[in-house]
């Protein structure tokens, strides 16, 4: 009896159901329900003291309207777009360049590539604290280097100048994400069969042509995945804002994810915090969809 049950679980349909069921249960409990709860909260009037109850006054789209009416809404959304686009662009280009560089396979290449991962391994708050010192206005390392090389004559107050504060976080974020991009792209590059390059070289294609006609097409799915993941990680980036600018001065470096936290946990306006999160969830879901689609058509040589 026990044996039959055991074998049913291990070999039969039971095992399949178990395999699908467990992760599904996990996803529903730890991702699905909180997600739905967050969406629900964005349609309710939430008060710090009703935080524990599920039934709260339903206010329809009031939270969304109130949020849109705040003068800082569009500037912050625009900041988010700039932050995401520029961070991904920087991380991807640098990451791709490094991946190609190490793909040349010189002596010690893989060792050096491993070293680059240090930035990815470090906790965000530590990275933030270090960049905080580097970008500091009066005694920052970056200002010192820029002054020493004659690029600037007066200190730039990276964290406190409204023209630079967002860029301060973007620079730190590019540094943080480049290594991860590089590793994923390196894996993609390694998957391209070398005979393709040899054949095209025999046909007289130059480096640039080989890059455009072999590397890029063969890497399509990897690039799609890297950029989608970049979008998700960038939209999740919170530590750097907390450590470097706190979204300031005057919201000049504030982005959606930091604002959501500020509203919820600084002003205790949990409904509005949830509303921003809901808007972001929709964005991330679109990105996730793109990611899933790009990995579905995986091309492997």
């Amino acid at each position: 009896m026990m044996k039959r049950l055991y074998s049913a679980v291990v070999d039969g349909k039971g095992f399949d159901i178990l395999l699908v069921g467990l992760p599904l249960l996990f996803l529903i409990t730890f991702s699905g329900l909180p997600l739905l709860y967050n969406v629900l909260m964005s349609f309710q009037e939430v008060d710090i003291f009703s935080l524990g109850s599920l039934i709260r006054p339903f206010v329809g789209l009031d939270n969304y309207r109130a949020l849109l009416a705040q003068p800082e809404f569009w500037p912050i959304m625009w900041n988010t777009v700039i932050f995401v686009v520029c961070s991904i662009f920087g991380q991807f280009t640098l990451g791709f360049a490094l991946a190609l560089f190490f793909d040349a396979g010189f002596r010690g290449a893989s060792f050096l590539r491993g070293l680059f991962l240090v930035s990815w391994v470090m906790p965000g708050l530590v990275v933030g604290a270090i960049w905080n010192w580097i970008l500091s206005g009066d005694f920052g390392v970056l200002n010192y280097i820029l002054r020493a090389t004659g690029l600037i004559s007066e200190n730039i107050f990276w964290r406190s100048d409204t023209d630079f504060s967002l860029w301060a976080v973007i620079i730190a974020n590019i540094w943080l994400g480049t290594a991860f991009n590089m590793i994923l792209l390196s894996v993609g590059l390694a998957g391209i069969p070398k005979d393709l390059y040899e054949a095209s070289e025999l046909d007289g294609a130059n480096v640039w042509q080989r890059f455009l006609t072999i590397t890029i097409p063969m890497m399509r799915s990897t690039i799609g995945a890297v950029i989608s993941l970049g979008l998700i990680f960038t939209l999740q980036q919170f530590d750097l804002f907390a450590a470097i600018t706190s979204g300031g001065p005057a919201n000049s470096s504030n982005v959606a994810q930091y604002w959501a936290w500020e509203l919820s946990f600084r002003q205790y306006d949990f409904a509005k915090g949830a509303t921003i999160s809901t808007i972001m969830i929709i964005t991330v879901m679109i990105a996730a969809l793109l990611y899933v689609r790009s990995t579905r058509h995986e091309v492997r040589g």
Partner: protein
Amino acid sequence: MKRLHILGRSVAAFTLLTSSAFAQDVTISVWSLDKETQPAYNLAKEFNDLDNGIKVDYRIVQFDDVVTEAMRAFATGQAPDIIAVDNPEHALFASRGAFLDLTDRIAASDVIDPDNYFPGPLNSVTWDGKYFGVPKATNTIALYYNVDKFKEAGLDPDNPPKTWDELVETARTLNAPEKNVYGIAFSAKASEEGTFQFLPWVQMTGGNYDKVNGEGAVRALETWKTILDEGLASPDTLTRGQWDSTGTFNSGNAAMVISGPWELNRMVEEADFEWRVALLPVPEEGAERASAMGDFNWAIFANTDHPDEAFHALEYFASQDDRLFPDFGQLPARSDIELPPTGNAPKDAALQVFLEQLKYAQPRGPHPEWPKVSKAIQDAIQLSLTGQKSTQEALDDAQARIDAALN
């Protein structure tokens, strides 16, 4: 030390006498931000050692998490019996009936007497004329200045700036960009710290949190703007908290700094120059004084099962207030406690100034919508100082948001 022992013993005797009222060991939970070297942690432990039938279960809560943790716990019925909460947040809980009304218990208490407390801290535990807590400790801000730099610049260190105009003028004289020295340091950060530093300036002119766009308030923010626009303070003032700002003073990169008594021990250690403390400058000679009022209050949650035992613990904490300064470097929120000299001359002199300044300390609020009020003030400070809005316009906007929050 001997005096302390006797006091400790008498308190122990007192608690032993009253402990017969409690039949079985009762456990009460206490949440506070105090760590191993700070008062609540040690007082809770000592209270346990009294073995009076009440056990205290102590938990450290991080500064940033106090309010959210407490709310979550209260909403789910898991609230502790006693909590230490930042004074501007007190009204938030008191007004919603989350804290126990202690008025009658305090009236009947032999240990806690409202008359012994400074009016500011007492005001912060008061809501609707009733006491919803007991001040835990207090602090305020004043002007630290570098005596060596005063002398170098030909200024009289016995005559520190007394008015805003003098403050700006002194900062101009002391400012020396070629030597990496700013005239003054303070914090205009977009957080509670910014409000903490700015509100006293408004209060000196007769304004307050509910009236921030008066003529005096505009002049106050204009004064800050002058300081930043002329480069008399680091532009990083906008994003730097008080601790980091004071760090630049300690290292000799700012000649003055506006900060509180929590810096005294670090300054004694770090600053290799002579420093003193002066009262916060006022708008003009003879104007009303004001300063900030910081630190936490004790409160008992309304849904506690053991209100008497919890209040008993608060009485014990309050009975040890005279140790706050000698043992932990914190200022008791009371006027009836004399602080013994530490033997460090600059520190003792500074302490007298802070005690004087405490008389003018005014609470932030109290108002249950404090976080929104404070945010409006922070935004006005930042919008004005970064030049994105005129000072008048920024403060008018803040006033509109405050009016909406208060009504």
